[in-house]
């Protein structure tokens, strides 16, 4: 009897602890949604902010999309994300295949070199890349945004490991049947490694959607802003510092796609991050 009471008490404490942090995590989200549906006048009149609103309105969303070219930022981000992710797959899949499956002179040496590149922080190379892209006259262009981030040594490594787990016999069987290397890659390896490829795509999409530093360096023309830069622009210059509800509407709008993606692919995302992700 005593034992079970103690257990009950400790369980309650654990749930309270977990619940408190859940509130701490969710509250900013709640606040941004709440603020985004408060009427502009009503919001500014609240010295003590209210925790709910009796008259939710969508006019802030209209204001957000008309006050700054938010739709344009969205489109840019979608193009940037899709193109970067797509191009990256085209680059890393053949590379991972070459490392995992093909045998050629110098392979192991190049692989060791690639691995050592994993230690190099992007902050170190961004300076020259900035100069390179400027020299190529690619500032304020999609190519300039995309090109420096279409290769990731880490994802090559992750995919190579995954390709490596596919038994040799499958390759031998395919060889005996006269399958070309390219066909083997497309018909056998990619389908088998699909879970990992999807993981990489999801991680890359998250990374692209939230990228801020490089786009900020390389674009100063708002026609090429991504959502992150758009938010920052909004905060510093856009629609007046006072229109916080509209600002929150924009914040909600750019946060929602990834949250939806996450809720749909919850397990894939979490599994992918725990296998291959880092912070941000």
């Amino acid at each position, binding site marked *: 009897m005593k034992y079970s009471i103690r257990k009950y008490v400790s369980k309650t404490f654990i749930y309270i602890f977990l619940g408190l942090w859940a509130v701490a995590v969710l509250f900013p989200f709640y606040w941004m949604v709440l603020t985004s549906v408060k009427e502009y006048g009503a919001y500014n009149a609240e010295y003590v902010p209210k925790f709910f609103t009796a008259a939710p309105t969508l006019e802030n969303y209209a204001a957000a999309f008309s006050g700054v070219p938010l739709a344009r930022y969205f489109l840019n981000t979608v193009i940037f994300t899709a193109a970067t992710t797509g191009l990256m797959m085209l680059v890393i899949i053949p590379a991972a295949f070459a490392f995992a499956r093909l045998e050629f002179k110098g392979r192991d040496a190049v692989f060791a070199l690639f691995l050592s590149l994993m230690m190099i922080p992007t902050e170190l190379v961004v300076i020259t890349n900035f100069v390179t892209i400027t020299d190529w006259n690619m500032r304020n262009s999609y190519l300039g945004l995309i090109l420096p981030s279409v290769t990731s040594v880490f994802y090559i490594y992750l995919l190579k490991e995954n390709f490596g787990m596919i038994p040799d016999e499958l390759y031998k*069987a395919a060889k*005996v049947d006269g399958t070309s290397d390219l*066909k083997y890659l497309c018909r056998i390896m990619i389908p088998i490694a699909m879970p990992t490829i999807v993981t990489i795509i999801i991680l890359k999409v998250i990374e692209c959607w939230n990228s801020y530093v490089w786009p900020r360096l390389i674009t100063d023309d708002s026609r090429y802003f991504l959502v992150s830069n758009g938010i920052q622009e909004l905060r510093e210059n856009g629609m007046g510092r006072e229109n916080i509800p509209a600002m929150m509407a924009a914040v909600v709008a750019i946060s929602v796609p990834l949250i939806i993606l996450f809720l749909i692919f919850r397990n894939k995302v979490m599994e992918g991050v725990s296998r291959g992700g880092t912070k941000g």
Partner: protein
Amino acid sequence: MKVVLDGLTKRFPNRNKKEAGEVVAVDHFTFEIPDGKLIGLLGPSGCGKSTTLNLISGLEEATEGRVFFGDHDVTKLPPEERGVGLVFQNYALYPHMTVEENIIFPLTNLKGSARLSREEMHKRAVQTASLVQLDGLLERKPKELSGGQQQRVAIARALIKTPEVLLLDEPLSNLDARLRLQTREEIRRIQRETGITTIFVTHDQDEAMSISDMIIVMKAGVIQQIGKPQEVYDNPVNLFVAQFLGTPAINVFNAKVKDGGLWIGNDRVLDAEGVPDMEVYAAIRPEGFVVDPEGPMHCGMDRLEVMGRDTSIVSVNDAMTGKSIRSIVPAESVPDADAAEVRFSLKPNKVFMFDAKTEERVGAVR
């Protein structure tokens, strides 16, 4: 299609780069496999069996020597032009494809005029599936099949392009004991029906003996003996072959030939006339022992193990190289388990002598 290997040799560079030299995986292989036979390639793991198979299939390039299919020299041909079917221990099925897609995959690689229509491929798939008794399973995914069924899919995939030679690399090792028996009968049946020359690699001598027309025993890249299974069992050319074939394993004793007799310890167990005096290994098959109170061979009694029809007597002798002697005798001649000693006489045709130095077979006992 007969298969001829002529001085086939494969050397690998040493994995450990500090050590000089090369590893010889297959050393001057020469033999001829008659058309339509099932050959068991037998040896302990790492003896070069699989390399031999890879050389025949063309997955690996020979360092020396040649491979002929019929009169056709295929040594330099890539695997897809040799017309071989290959089946692996772990089946190597493509997990994301259905059984039918797996089976017709080799056909999808054909180019130009050899290319078949979808219907033709489907027809061939159905035919081949029926040959290996996979009817009705064509829509399944490999992971929905049992091990035995998966292996039959692999065989069907190897057979669909009607290969000249079928190569099976440890095809039964991943199956449990009951399925292994079943599947090996199945392989035998399919081979008989199709008449395709088949080479079957295994480390399990039981398997090789039971279904092969002929076995090749290998050790460290070198052929030890070729022959019909029973012949090799009855007449091993060296100690290795004698030890490798037969379960329970053959009993090996330190022995000597003296004055025309074979001596194990202080017992003169058999006549060995015409053999010069020398140190030998005497190897006795478990079924070569006959319980005989007057028998010449004295052993210390350890225990009896009843195995149904037969009984296994476990006994000890100082000259025995292993731990204990295992002999198999009919149930009716079982001695008293509590006795301190058991005496045997030996069947001469189950006793082999090998030179203690070279381990080659010497003379004969009577």
